[in-house]
């Protein structure tokens, strides 16, 4: 990598990595039956909104990582567009390979199926650079400093938590089991799961949240980190869970307690996603 002098060649390698990342992050959902139907059955306005939210998240992720170092927000937009494109192409290619896209299908259906799958795939495309180029060597040092500087802010941290929660919640939410688990659990189970989510989130935030830094960020102690990151982090996880459930129509017509139960269930993976976001991005 360090020997390549042409920026085009380098960008080409970045795109190749992005495709790999798109497939890695997209595969579990590409192989989930509910997702094929959700692409068709999700309310188009909600799907549209989710695609726009996803695009904004991609721009943010490009700020904090992405498959290429960026200087300006405009470049982040370019990267987000490229990641979206890679996500769409990778999803369409895999769905076609699986025999799920047939020429006699109406255009709406093909677009819907590809669009919903392109969300996790584009996420993977954006993260690919970081994940698949870990061994890049010494030149990373300077970049990492800048990277760290960008992510240092409290708002940035919370943004990453939101992105992580969104990704994991999106991965878990399509299955019927989210609602079923909510029904199986008694209110005591729900309370225990809330507690477990908070503890796990806090443990992960405290243990890995400040990875790569010798000292605790701003000298945050375990108590302050709890109020600065864990509590808002879990709040974000719950909100993201509700948003994902609503997008998939799983919150429609449900009683408040049923929706709350499903939010707590989905909040568990969302909280884990929020906690490890900094590690992955």
């Amino acid at each position, binding site marked *: *990598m*360090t020997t*390549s*002098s*042409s*920026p*085009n060649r*380098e*960008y*080409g390698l970045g*795109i190749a990595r992005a495709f790999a990342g798109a497939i890695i992050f997209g595969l579990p959902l590409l192989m989930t*039956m509910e997702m094929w*139907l*959700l692409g*068709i*059955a999700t*309310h*188009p*306005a909600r*799907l*549209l909104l989710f*695609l*726009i939210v996803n*695009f904004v998240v991609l721009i943010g992720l490009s700020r904090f990582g992405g498959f*290429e*170092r960026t*200087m*300006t927000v405009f*470049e982040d*937009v*370019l*990267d*987000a*567009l*490229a*990641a*979206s*494109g*890679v996500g*769409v*192409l990778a999803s369409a290619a895999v769905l076609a390979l699986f025999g799920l896209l047939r020429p*006699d*299908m*109406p*255009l*709406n*259906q093909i*677009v*819907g199926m*590809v*669009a919903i799958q*392109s969300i996790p795939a584009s996420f993977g495309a954006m993260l690919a650079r970081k994940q698949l180029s870990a061994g*890049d060597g010494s*030149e990373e040092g*300077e*970049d990492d400093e800048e990277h760290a500087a960008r992510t240092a802010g409290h708002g940035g941290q919370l943004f990453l938590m939101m992105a992580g929660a969104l990704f994991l919640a999106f991965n878990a939410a399509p299955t019927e089991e989210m609602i079923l688990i909510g029904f199986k659990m008694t209110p005591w189970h729900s309370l225990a799961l809330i507690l477990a989510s908070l503890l796990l989130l806090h443990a992960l935030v405290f243990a890995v949240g400040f990875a790569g830094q010798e000292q605790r960020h701003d000298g945050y102690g375990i108590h302050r980190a709890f109020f600065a990151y864990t509590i808002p982090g879990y709040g974000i996880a719950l909100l993201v869970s509700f948003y994902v459930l609503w997008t998939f*129509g799983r919150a429609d017509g449900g009683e408040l307690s049923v929706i709350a139960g499903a939010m707590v269930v989905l909040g568990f993976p969302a909280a884990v996603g929020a906690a490890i976001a900094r590690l992955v991005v």
Partner: protein
Amino acid sequence: MGRAKSRANGKSQTPLLEWIAAGIGLLLTLGMLGVIGREALNGETEQLPVIAVAATRISPALPGYVVAFEASNKTAGTAAAVEIEAVLKDGEAIVETGKATLDYVPGHGKAKGGVFFLEDPRPHTLEIRALGFQTP
């Protein structure tokens, strides 16, 4: 990396490939948003599915016969867990009934399946229709 070098020169250069990749991404994204947006504005998804089922082929099976059918949805409303019932009749008398379940029939889309009969369906009247569905 390349970007770091150009930054050292004081100016960032966007590689041509980046423009191309972003351009393709923009086209795909806008196309996707356009198709889904049109659907959102139409509000067609609120329609109830209307599913027509037609037998397409009859061939021998072990034992009996298999009737292949195609269910096509005439509206934009998607139907899930679609129950298909096929009845063999001799005049008014029911000779045999068969059932099949389709995972889903998308709006304006098609799904295929088959029903097994012990009797040869050809000399009889075959009535095949959708019994019900689940709103996904």
